[in-house]
């Protein structure tokens, strides 16, 4: 294995990058100025070194707690539950939401060995027990995302908190990450009681 092969392998592990694209990226870097490649390496190194999950909500952040959890402007009585940190970015881009977040770190998928213990469900219950007015379930409208919402709703029910679900209008089977801001804003406005 040469170092070139190593880099191709690393690129090929990234989502949406096949073997052919991995080769193209590698040879692009080999042709560019050495400083360009080093700058990319430093940027990758910096995120690996400095970005961590927020100890409160699970969002990816350089500070702890994250900027959203630390902001006095945000309404801490409303928690929006998402699958991944990237979903937070999508909802923030809509500019419609003033509450805080909770990242589950995935969705239920027994076939992949992902049950409630693999997700941050217990930390969510702890946060809700501290006093929260509303939990908005914003998991993806896929089969797995919907089942995750149903499950979280069920374990929250005994706590007596108001639980809502983002309205459909999001494409069925689609990913929140790819939905545009307008769609997310409409879905937030039309969220339903569970």
């Amino acid at each position, binding site marked *: 294995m040469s170092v070139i092969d190593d880099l191709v392998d690393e690129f090929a592990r990234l989502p949406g990058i096949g073997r052919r694209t991995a080769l193209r990226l590698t040879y692009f870097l080999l042709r560019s100025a050495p400083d360009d490649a080093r700058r990319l390496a430093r940027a990758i190194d910096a995120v690996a070194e400095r970005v961590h999950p927020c100890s409160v909500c699970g969002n990816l952040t350089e500070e702890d707690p994250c900027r959203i959890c630390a902001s006095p402007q945000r309404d801490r009585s409303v928690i929006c539950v998402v699958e991944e940190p990237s979903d937070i970015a999508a909802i923030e881009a809509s500019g419609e939401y003033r509450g805080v977040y909770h990242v589950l770190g995935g969705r*239920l*998928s*027994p*076939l992949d060995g992902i*049950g*409630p213990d693999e997700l941050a469900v217990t930390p969510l219950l702890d946060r809700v027990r501290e006093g929260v007015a509303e939990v908005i379930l914003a998991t993806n409208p896929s*089969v*797995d995302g*919907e*089942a*995750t919402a*149903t*499950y979280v709703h*069920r*374990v929250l029910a005994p706590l007596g908190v108001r639980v809502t679900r983002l309205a459909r209008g999001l494409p*069925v*089977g689609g990913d929140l990450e790819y939905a545009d801001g307008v769609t997310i804003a409409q879905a937030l406005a039309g969220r339903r009681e569970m």
Partner: protein
Amino acid sequence: MISGGNGQGKTNLLEAIYYLATFRSFRGARDEQLVRFGADFFRVEGQVGELMDAAAEHHTLSAAFHRVSGEKRVTVDGREALRLSEAVGRLPAVIFTGTDVGIARGAPGLRRRFLDVALSLARPAYLAALQQFRRALTQRNECLRRGSSAAEVEAWDEMLVTWGAVIVRDRARWVRDNADAFARHYAAISGSGPARLVYVSGWKDAGPEDDVEEWRRSYGAALERTRHADRLRRWTRVGPHRDDLAIELSDRTGARGEGLDLRVYGSGGEQRTAALALRLTEAEWLRGAMGCEPLALLDDVFGELDRQRVRRVLELLGSEGRGQVILSAAQPVDWAAEARDLLQVTVEGGRLRSAARVA
């Protein structure tokens, strides 16, 4: 008209053509089994449309499967289809095969697959519902298999009920809407007593077929009832994945006045007739639902059938539609009388050899 000896590639050719309709093997073979021995991938491409009419719209469909990566690429007019439902049904086709009698005689799964394929071809929303339902079902069964908590198992119920209700609504409606056509085709082929199609749901008597809310409610209640048994048996026992399409011989009745089940009481000839009638019904329905003639593929059905049935089928296909018919048989000569004006092609060792038109 494709002729050639056994193992020369007649079925392969028809399978390749039909692959562009459903993007699956009609034999139920897995994609990796369709790759030629020693090769890494297969690729099929076809032009679909009124090709005789240059002004009419037509599409180029392609499908490729790579054995090593397990990747399947489907394109419509050169653009990759992100979901299979974007490409399924671009080539409306119905296939008649020598093993079709299994639909009438065999396990319920074969009849469910018949309904699923027919509905998916004409309704992309049905295929999407089917995929969502299957996902929820496998996940729920996995929970049951692992002995997960009730909350984990029941987390999948809402999705199961939502998509399951759409599936049974569409299937039950299809059966209701096509029952007359089936009876007509059955009578035309057999020249004997009537037969009837009935959708059999494991949890609810038929009707009102159109009411998806009612199907949701009744399916939800059924899941509730079988909850305990599901946990014991470790799989989901009720749902569209357990339903059946029954074929009843309505001139012969059982003790309670019900039509006798063709699967049990029908003769071999009646079962063959029913399978053919189902295919003809499928073709007629596709014609109505999609507003064009489906391509009819007949794969070596003629060894199974007597000459009289064959003649009826060709008459029915010929009289009701002007669509393209591609048929395969071991012996071209047998065909002179029934198959007039057919382009004759021989296949040998996987290659098409000659083409001539029979007067």
